[in-house]
C-alpha cells in the first residue's frame, strides 16, 4: 500500500476540485445527461481513483477535469477547479495555457497517443519546446525525462518510431511527455489496460515512484479494482454519472458500504475462490440507458436492497468515519447482502479427451523460421478446464489455433481426440471432429458477422455441425438461446444491437451449437466489465458441468483462471514452463516465471505481493535465448547452467511439472523466503 497521508495543511488548495459537475452529451440536438452532480477533491500529492463499469462516466469525468471534451460535451452545471483556479469557463487560450502548465493526461492506448510517422524523440522534445524551451535545452530535458521513466537507453529510443517500441515502453514515453511540464495534476485514464500483467506492474511501479519524486496529484481511472487499490489513497465508486461511495481505498474495498460497491467486489473471483466452491455473484440488470431519467437513487433498478423508500426518495449522503460517505438509504443493511451462491457443479472426469503430444508450430517469416510452439505436451480430461497463462507472445493463442486446425502444426506433432488421431488442418477433419472442438474468441465484435442476425449465426452453425434440417435447427437454436439466457427477441437482432455481454453469449451459444467435446476459450471475458464477466464465467461453468465439456481457457487474468481452471499450464516463448493443478500452482513451488506472473497481479484484497519484477520484454521467438529460454529475465538464473542447457522437466508432485534447472526443494525454500 502506498498510503502517504496527505501532509499538506488543510488550507492548501486542492490539486483538483470538482463541484457538483453536471455534464451532458448533445446527441442530435438533445442533451443527454452523463454526469449527474459529481463532486470530489484530489489533494496535492494524493492519488485518487475512480472505479466503475464502462458507461458509468468515469472517463468523462477524467476528460472533463482537464476540459478535454468532445464538441458535443457540454457542462450544464458545477465547477472544476484545478489548483484553485476555476477552469469551467476558460476560453481556448486560457485552456491552452492551463494544460501547458498545470495538468497532463495519459490515455489508455499509448500507441494512439503518439504520431506513428514521427520519431519518438522528436515528439518528446516537442513536449518541451511548447513550454518555450530552446531546441537544445528541450533535447537534453527530453533525454532526462526518458531516463526518469526508467528507459535504459534513451538515445536509442528517441531514434525509434512508435511502432518499433513495445506497449509498456510507449506508455513510459507518454508518461515522460505528460510530466514534461511538471504538472501538479496527472490524469491517468486506464493507463495499463491492454498491457500484460508483468508490464502493468512495471508501469504502476513507475507511476508510484514518479509520484513520490514529483509530488504530483494523481487522478487514476481504471476498471481494474486491484490496480486502484494498489495505487490510490482514496477512491470514488461511480455509477450512472454519480459517485455512490467515496473513501479510503483500503476501507472501501475491505468493507464496502454501498450495494453497488458490494456487487462489484463480489463479482470478482477473489480469495482463491474456485468454481467448485461457489458461483460468482452477479449484478442483475444492465446499466441505465445513456441520459435516462434517474430521479432518486441511480442504482435502484439493480439493487438487492431496493424498496419503496429507494424508489421515492433521493438517498442521503451518509457520512462515515474517516471522511467516507455513501449514498444509500440502507447503509446498515449493506453488510447483510447475501454472499455468493454455493456451487453445485460436477467435478472434472478422469477420461482423457485430448492428448497433445510434441506439438510444434514454426512460421516462416521473411525467410526465417520462427518457432512459435516448441514440443508442447498436454492432456485434457472430460469436463476439465485447462487454464493457459503467459504474457502476450508466449504462444497461447497459437497453441489454441493449432488445436483447432486453423494453423497446421509441424510434422511430428500429434493430436489425439478420444483415442483417434486428428488431421492437422480443419479442412481435412471430419464433421464430427469439427463439431467436437469449437472456440469462443476474445472479441465478440469481430467473432460475429456484423451483417448477420443472431438467429442466422446460430442456425448456420447448428445446421452445418449437426446436419439437422431447418425445423430441427430452429428448435435447437431456441434451446441454445434459452440455455444461454438470450431472450427470443435477441435472436432477430444483429450483433451491433447487443451489449458486449450478450454478444459473448451468442458466441458461446455458437460454440455449443454442436455439443462440442472441447471448447477453446480465448480470453472470453477480457473485454467485459466485471459484473458481466461474472455472469459469463458462471455460465461457462454451468454449461461445462451439464455437458461434460472440456475447456482450454486462455486468460491473462490469473484471478479468473484460478476460479475456473482445474489445471493450469504456464507458457513462455512457445514452451510449457509449468503445469499442475490449480491448487498446486498457487501453492508452489513454482517455476520462477510463474512466480513472477503471480506476484505481478495487483490484488484487490490488499495483500502485499512480493514484487518480483521481470526485466525486459519477452524475446522474439525468431531468436530465442540459449539454454533455458527464460534465463535472461529470470531472477533466479544460475550463470553457467541456465544459459547453457535446456532445463529438464521435473515432476514436483503427481501431475505438477516444472521446466527448471533449480531443484524443486530449492525452489520451495527460495520461494518461501520471499
Amino acid at each position, binding site marked *: 500500500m502506498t498510503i502517504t497521508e496527505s501532509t499538506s495543511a488543510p488550507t492548501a488548495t486542492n490539486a483538483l476540485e470538482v463541484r457538483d459537475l453536471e455534464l451532458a452529451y448533445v*446527441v*442530435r*440536438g*438533445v442533451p*443527454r445527461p452523463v454526469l449527474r452532480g459529481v463532486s470530489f477533491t484530489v489533494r496535492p500529492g494524493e492519488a485518487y481513483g475512480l472505479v466503475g463499469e*464502462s*458507461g458509468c462516466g468515469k472517463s468523462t469525468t477524467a476528460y472533463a477535469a482537464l476540459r478535454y471534451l468532445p464538441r458535443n460535451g457540454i457542462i450544464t452545471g458545477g465547477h472544476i477547479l484545478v489548483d484553485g483556479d476555476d477552469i469551467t469557463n476558460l476560453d481556448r487560450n486560457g485552456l491552452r495555457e492551463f494544460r501547458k502548465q498545470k495538468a497532463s493526461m495519459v490515455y489508455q492506448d499509448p500507441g494512439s497517443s503518439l504520431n506513428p510517422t514521427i520519431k519518438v524523440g522528436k515528439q518528446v522534445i516537442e513536449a518541451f519546446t511548447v513550454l518555450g524551451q530552446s531546441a537544445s535545452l528541450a533535447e537534453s530535458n527530453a533525454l532526462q525525462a526518458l531516463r526518469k521513466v526508467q528507459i535504459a537507453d534513451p538515445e536509442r529510443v528517441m531514434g525509434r518510431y512508435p511502432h518499433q517500441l513495445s506497449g509498456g515502453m510507449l506508455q513510459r514515453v507518454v508518461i515522460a511527455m505528460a510530466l514534461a511540464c511538471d504538472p501538479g495534476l496527472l490524469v491517468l485514464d486506464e493507463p495499463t489496460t491492454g498491457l500484460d500483467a508483468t508490464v502493468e506492474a512495471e508501469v504502476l511501479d513507475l507511476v508510484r515512484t514518479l509520484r513520490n519524486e514529483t509530488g504530483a496529484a494523481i487522478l487514476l481511472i481504471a476498471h481494474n479494482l486491484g490496480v486502484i487499490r494498489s495505487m490510490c489513497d482514496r477512491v470514488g465508486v461511480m455509477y450512472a454519472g454519480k459517485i455512490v461511495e467515496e473513501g479510503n481505498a483500503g476501507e472501501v474495498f475491505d468493507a464496502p458500504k454501498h450495494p453497488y460497491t458490494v456487487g462489484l467486489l463480489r463479482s470478482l473471483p477473489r480469495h482463491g475462490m474456485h468454481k467448485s466452491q461457489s458461483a460468482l455473484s452477479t449484478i442483475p440488470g*444492465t*446499466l441505465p*440507458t*445513456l*441520459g435516462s431519467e434517474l430521479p432518486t437513487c441511480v442504482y435502484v433498478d439493480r439493487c438487492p436492497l431496493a424498496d419503496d423508500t429507494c424508489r421515492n426518495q433521493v438517498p442521503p449522503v451518509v457520512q462515515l468515519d474517516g471522511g467516507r460517505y455513501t449514498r444509500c438509504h440502507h447503509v446498515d443493511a449493506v453488510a447483510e447482502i447475501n454472499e455468493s451462491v454455493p456451487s453445485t457443479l460436477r467435478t472434472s472426469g478422469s477420461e482423457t479427451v485430448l492428448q497433445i503430444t510434441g506439438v510444434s508450430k514454426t512460421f516462416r517469416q521473411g525467410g526465417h523460421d520462427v518457432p512459435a510452439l516448441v514440443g508442447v505436451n498436454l492432456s485434457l480430461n472430460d469436463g476439465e478446464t485447462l487454464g493457459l497463462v503467459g504474457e502476450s507472445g508466449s504462444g497461447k493463442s497459437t497453441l489454441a489455433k493449432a488445436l*483447432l486446425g*486453423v494453423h497446421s502444426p509441424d510434422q511430428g506433432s500429434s493430436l489425439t481426440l478420444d483415442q483417434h488421431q486428428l488431421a492437422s488442418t*480443419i*479442412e481435412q477433419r471430419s*464433421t464430427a471432429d*469439427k463439431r467436437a*472442438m*469449437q*472456440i469462443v*474468441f476474445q*472479441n465478440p465484435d*469481430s*467473432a*460475429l*458477422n*456484423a*451483417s*448477420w*442476425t443472431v438467429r442466422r449465426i446460430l442456425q*448456420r*452453425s447448428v445446421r*452445418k*455441425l449437426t446436419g439437422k434440417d431447418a425445423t430441427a435447427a430452429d428448435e435447437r437454436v431456441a434451446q441454445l438461446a434459452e440455455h444461454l439466457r438470450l431472450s427470443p*427477441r*435477441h435472436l*432477430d*437482432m*444483429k450483433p*451491433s*444491437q*447487443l*451489449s*458486449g455481454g*450478450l454478444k459473448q453469449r451468442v458466441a458461446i451459444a*455458437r460454440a455449443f*451449437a*454442436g455439443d462440442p467435446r472441447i471448447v477453446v476459450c480465448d480470453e472470453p471475458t477480457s473485454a467485459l466489465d466485471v459484473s458481466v464477466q461474472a455472469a459469463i464465467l458462471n455460465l461457462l461453468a454451468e454449461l461445462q458441468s451439464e455437458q461434460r465439456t472440456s475447456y482450454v481457457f486462455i486468460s491473462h487474468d490469473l484471478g479468473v483462471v484460478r476460479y475456473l481452471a482445474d489445471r493450469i499450464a504456464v507458457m513462455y516463448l512457445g514452451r510449457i514452463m509449468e503445469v499442475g493443478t490449480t491448487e498446486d500452482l498457487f501453492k508452489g513451488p513454482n517455476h520462477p516465471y510463474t512466480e513472477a506472473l503471480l506476484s505481478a497481479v495487483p490484488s484487490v484484497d490488499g495483500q502485499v505481493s512480493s514484487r518480483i519484477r521481470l526485466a525486459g520484454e519477452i524475446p522474439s521467438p525468431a531468436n530465442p535465448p540459449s539454454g533455458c529460454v527464460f534465463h535472461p529475465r529470470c531472477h533466479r538464473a544460475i550463470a553457467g547452467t541456465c544459459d547453457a542447457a535446456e532445463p529438464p522437466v521435473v515432476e514436483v508432485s503427481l501431475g505438477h511439472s516444472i521446466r527448471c534447472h533449480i531443484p524443486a526443494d530449492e525452489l520451495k525454500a527460495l520461494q518461501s523466503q520471499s
Partner: protein
Amino acid sequence: MELEDVNAETAIEPALQSSSMMIDAAPNVLKQSLAERKQARKERWRLLRRRPGFIIGAVIVLFWAFCAAFAQYVVPYNPFDDRDKRHMPPSADHWFGTDQTGRDIFSRVLTGARDILLVAPIAAVLAVIMGTLLGMIMGYFRGWTDNILSRFVEAFLALPVVLVGLYVLTLASQSDFLQTISFNSRNILVIYVVAVLFTPIVARTVRAAVQGERDLDYVVSARLRGESSLFIMTREIFPNVTGPIIVELTVRIGYAIFTVATLSFLGVGIQPPSPDWGLTISDERAVLAAGIWWPVTFNALAIITLVVAVNLIADSIQAVYQK
C-alpha cells in the same frame, strides 16, 4: 451498452422517422429488427440528404438523365437537321449558336447526353462486378493466387487507360473478332473496353476491403464449422464490404464519363452522327482559333457539369459510408 446506444440513436430523431420507429423502452427496439436493414438505408439516405454537395450533384445528374431520356422530344430543333446558318453565335433563336453544318447546338448538347449516359454507367457497373469478383478472390485466397493476380493487376494499372483504349478501339475497326463480340455496335465495344480497363482498379479496392475482413474471427469461425470458401466469400464477407463497393461504383461512374468523353474526342469512342459532347468538341476544335468559341464551350460545360456532379455524389456517399 450498444443496445442502449441504438435506443438513443433512434429516439433522438423522431421527427424524421415514422412514429413506429420512435423508441422509448428497450423492448420496442426489437420490433424493428426485420425492417432494420431498410432502416440503416434510411439513416444513410437521411445523412445524404443533409449534404448540399449531394443535393447539387443529384439535381444536375437528374437533369442530364432527363435529357438523355427525353431531350429528343422537347428540344426546339432537330439536332440532326443541317441549316444554312453555319457557326451563328448564340442568339434568341439559337441559344447556344449553331455549328459547322448549321445544327442547333442547344438541341445537340441536350440530346448529346444520351450515349454517354448509357455507355459510361454501364461500363462502370460492369467494371465493378468484374473487379469485385477478382478482388474477392485476391483478398480471400492470398498466397500465390493473390501474388499472381496482383502482378497482373499492377501491370494493368501501369498502363494509361486512354492510351490502351485508343489502341484497342482503333484496332477494333480491323478486327473481325472484336466486331463480332460487339454485335457491330460501337457503343457496346466502348463499354467492354472501359469496363475491362477499370476492372483492376476496382479489384484493388475490393481486395483491400476483403483482406481487412478475412482476418476477423468470424471467418475463422466459419472455417471451423466447415464452410466452403465460396460460402465464406459470398455470404460471410461480401455483405460486410458492400459499403466500399458502392463508393467505388460512384467514383468509377465519374471516371467512366470522363474516359468515354475523351475516347469520343479522339474519334474512337461514340461515333457520328451522335451529337455526343466529346465528338462535337473534336469536330469543332479547329474553329476555336477563329474565335468561334460556342460549339466547344457549351459541350465542354456539359461534360464538366456531369463529371463534377457525379463526383459530388461520390464524395457524399463516401463520407456517409465511412461514418
